[in-house]
């Protein structure tokens, strides 16, 4: 049994433009990234460096040009059924109410409606939205929609959570609130809230019981461009180089004590120290990325 929940091994992604097949763009080059079961890993990098590409590869939504993805030691083919994905932009179905959005994944898995509704309601109240179930997404605020999306992902009890700058569209207060809630949900043991047995929820797992990590936690791969957010939330921060041909250029273990409060942890001396260390590495890449964008626009 592999220690790692998710392994991206020597991943390269090359896109070619439809109109001109000669024009190629290598977004990600020879990247290896491993996430242990129950580990919270953040990936930071300058804008447009291919962070989202990497995440889509891990999700199985995008097939890499070369390299393999392994999920709990097994090579991934197709969509990664053991992962939940929180998207950067709106991903809720606008034609379904909040509760219907949360229960849709359970319905896909063939959970009976009454049972699915019960679990969805429980999760809505867990993210602080009990009583909002009948609202449509457009009737909810941005933060509330993110909460619904969080419930939608977590109700399926995935072993791996992939997050693509999920809070970048939120204002700073809502954002810190959400970050703390995600940390709390993540560190809470996953037992006791599962109404349905695990076998039903992870059909692709073949009903095997798989360790969800040393603390029953989920593995998280968190993409962000915000270094503060990355350090405050993670066990490990991986810095990516500027694109094209992005690859990891630094890795930092975050040894801050948990539980953390994302607002308070920023004042600790160790946080500042880590921030300085990582920023040293990241700064040059940010400048490089910016220069490239200017050149592209010219």
């Amino acid at each position, binding site marked *: 049994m592999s220690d790692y929940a998710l392994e991206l091994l020597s991943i390269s992604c090359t896109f070619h433009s439809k109109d001109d097949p000669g024009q190629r763009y290598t977004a990600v080059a020879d990247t290896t990234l491993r996430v242990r079961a129950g580990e919270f890993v953040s990936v930071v990098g300058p804008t447009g460096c291919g962070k989202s590409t990497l995440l889509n590869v891990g*999700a199985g*939504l995008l097939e890499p040009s070369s390299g393999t993805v392994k999920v709990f030691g097994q090579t991934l083919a197709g*969509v*990664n*059924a053991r*992962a*939940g*994905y929180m*998207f950067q*932009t*709106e*991903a*809720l*179905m*606008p*034609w*379904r*109410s909040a509760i219907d959005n949360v229960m*849709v*994944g359970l*319905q*896909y*898995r063939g959970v009976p409606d009454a049972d699915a509704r019960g679990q969805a309601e429980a999760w809505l109240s867990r993210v602080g939205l009990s009583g909002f179930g009948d*609202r*449509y*997404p*457009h*009737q*909810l*605020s941005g933060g*509330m929609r993110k909460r619904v999306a969080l419930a*939608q992902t977590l109700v*399926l009890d995935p072993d791996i959570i992939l997050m693509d700058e999920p809070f970048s569209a939120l204002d700073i207060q809502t954002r810190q609130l959400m970050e703390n809630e995600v940390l709390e949900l993540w560190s809470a043991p996953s037992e006791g809230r599962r109404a349905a047995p695990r076998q039903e929820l992870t*059909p692709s797992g073949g009903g095997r019981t798989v360790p969800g990590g040393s603390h029953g936690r989920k593995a998280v791969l968190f993409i962000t461009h915000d270094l503060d957010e990355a350090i405050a939330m993670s066990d490990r921060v991986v810095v990516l180089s500027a694109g094209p041909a992005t690859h990891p250029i630094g890795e930092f273990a975050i040894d801050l004590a948990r539980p953390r409060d994302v607002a308070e942890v920023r004042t600790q001396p160790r946080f500042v120290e880590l921030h300085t260390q990582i920023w040293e590495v990241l700064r040059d890449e940010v400048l490089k990325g910016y220069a490239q964008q200017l050149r592209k626009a010219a």
Partner: protein
Amino acid sequence: MMPRLNERNARFWQLVLLAIILVGWHLASRNQQVAFFLGEPIQVAGRIWSWFLPFEVPPNLLFPEGLKGNADIYRHLGTTLLETVLAFGIGTVLGLACGLWLALAPTASLILDPYIKAANSMPRVILAPIFALWFGLGIWSKVALAVTLVFFIVFFNVYQGVREVSPVVLANAKMLGANQRQLLRTVYLPSATSWVFSSLHTSVGLAFVGAVVGEYLGSARGVGYLILQAEGTFDVNTVFAGIVVLTGFALLLDGLVGLIEKRLMKWQPRSGETEKL
């Protein structure tokens, strides 16, 4: 003092405009020559009365010969409405099915593309004689004609609707474990529905057009047939009465579609609606 125009008293001004048009029409038709071409509003109203109501009106100032209460339009109107509703239903279902299929099957859409474009740009009213040949002079030749009109409107809207499904919503549904059929039911169909509804208003009118034009070109009953008969005898009042009745029922059907749309599309944000927290 002139009341200020707003949403609430707009109806009043709309009625005023209608009254002005009717009075103008009436005054113009005092001239016999104009009346021959334009008809007389009072006679038109009288015609509609005798079509719909079984009550006889004795001779009076407006109608020196009195009015017959024939109530004989229902057979014709029923035929026309049946054709319209059948064409609307069949055309919408066909358009929805083909639109979904072609949007999700790139190979088929690639091969069929020029044929669809050709079929759409063809003036389809021309098909009426062929349909009359194939389906006879009964209702089905009219239904067929109207279906060709409705089908393309719905088809193109569904096609567009499926293509414009938000890729993020689609990816999200995939990550939540949807298989191909579940994607169709929970993502593609609802997403296309909003496009379909915007097309239904147009297609309900076109279903009517198809039915009436079909009748006009050859039939034994229907409002189009009534109009054709009246035209043959230069009975311009009956022609206008037919037009008024058709317009009224087209508005009614349109309102019905709007009502259904309002019920089914309640998830859509309306412009100006505040966010309820």
